[in-house]
């Protein structure tokens, strides 16, 4: 049940993020200055940290979603728990791979 509850919550969070994302990117229409200003704000360490969080949420939702798809189409209800942890291991690996460069940028930015 926990996996499902987290899936729902992460899904709702991602919808909220998506809406925001569309608005932010729409700043392109107002020319380079305004866009870069907004982007600079988003490039701040606080937002970078949130970006790492976002990556985690996305990966959880994506890989638990994949687990559900596997169960729906190919069975595997009997090993659903194992499947969950396998998916989480993959997601965690990707998280490390994805978060490292962002963290790198972040540290760079902080060092300067």
């Amino acid at each position, binding site marked *: 049940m926990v996996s499902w509850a987290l899936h729902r919550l992460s899904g709702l969070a991602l919808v909220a993020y998506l809406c925001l994302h569309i608005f932010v990117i729409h700043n392109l229409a107002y020319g380079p200055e305004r866009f870069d200003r907004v982007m600079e704000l988003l490039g701040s360490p606080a937002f970078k940290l949130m970006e790492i969080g976002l990556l985690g949420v996305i990966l959880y939702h994506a890989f638990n979603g994949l687990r559900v798809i596997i*169960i729906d189409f190919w069975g595997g*209800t009997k090993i659903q728990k194992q499947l969950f942890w396998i998916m989480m291991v993959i997601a965690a690996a990707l998280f490390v791979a994805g978060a490292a460069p962002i963290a790198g940028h972040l540290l760079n930015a902080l060092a300067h």
Partner: protein
Amino acid sequence: MQKIRFRIKRFNPAKDRRPHFEDFTVEAEPETPVLDCLHEIKWHQDGTLAFRRSCGHAICGSCAMTINGQNRLACQTLVKNVGKNIIVEPLRSFPLEKDLIVNLDRFYERFYSIMPYFVNNSPPPDTERIQWPEDQELIDEAASCILCASCTSSCPSFWADDDYIGPSALLKAYRFIFDTRDQAQKERLALINTSKGPWKCHTIFNCNEACPKDIDITNAIARLKLKLNDL
């Protein structure tokens, strides 16, 4: 013999406005079923305690209740499985009647709603209809459902919306839809293909964990979803 502490949710419609907990102590062996402990209380301590039970060995489906937070059959749950402090509550999400007895009308209505009977109107042969063992095995597990309501009562989708057909009735639908001898597949699929049907199943697995007969209910519902998509 050891002392087992029971916290039982009590509600007497003639006296109480809302449910409350009462404590009892029972001497029991680790191998004593919880049902026998409840009987010990009812028969020797407090005769007002009300609960349903019939067969006593996990096939009639009467004594489903929430024991230490999980839906179980009291007759199949031994003291050693749940510890020395046992909290017993009625099945959740059904209207409470008295103590551990809930009103299952809603549950049975869902069961009746999916044409829960075998249909084959072609004239039967003189002997049995042939069914291959592998075809029989498709429905064998689903046919062992005891209608105890543990699954439906454990389902978050049902908690949120008791119009949901629910895992038990969907499992019953599966039992007929995947019976190679049945001829009402189309009607039955149409009956469940509503917004209150299998689409309300979000692969949460509570039903599988609650099922005292270890039936893979989630899988049955997943097969129904595929069938409804002609996959």
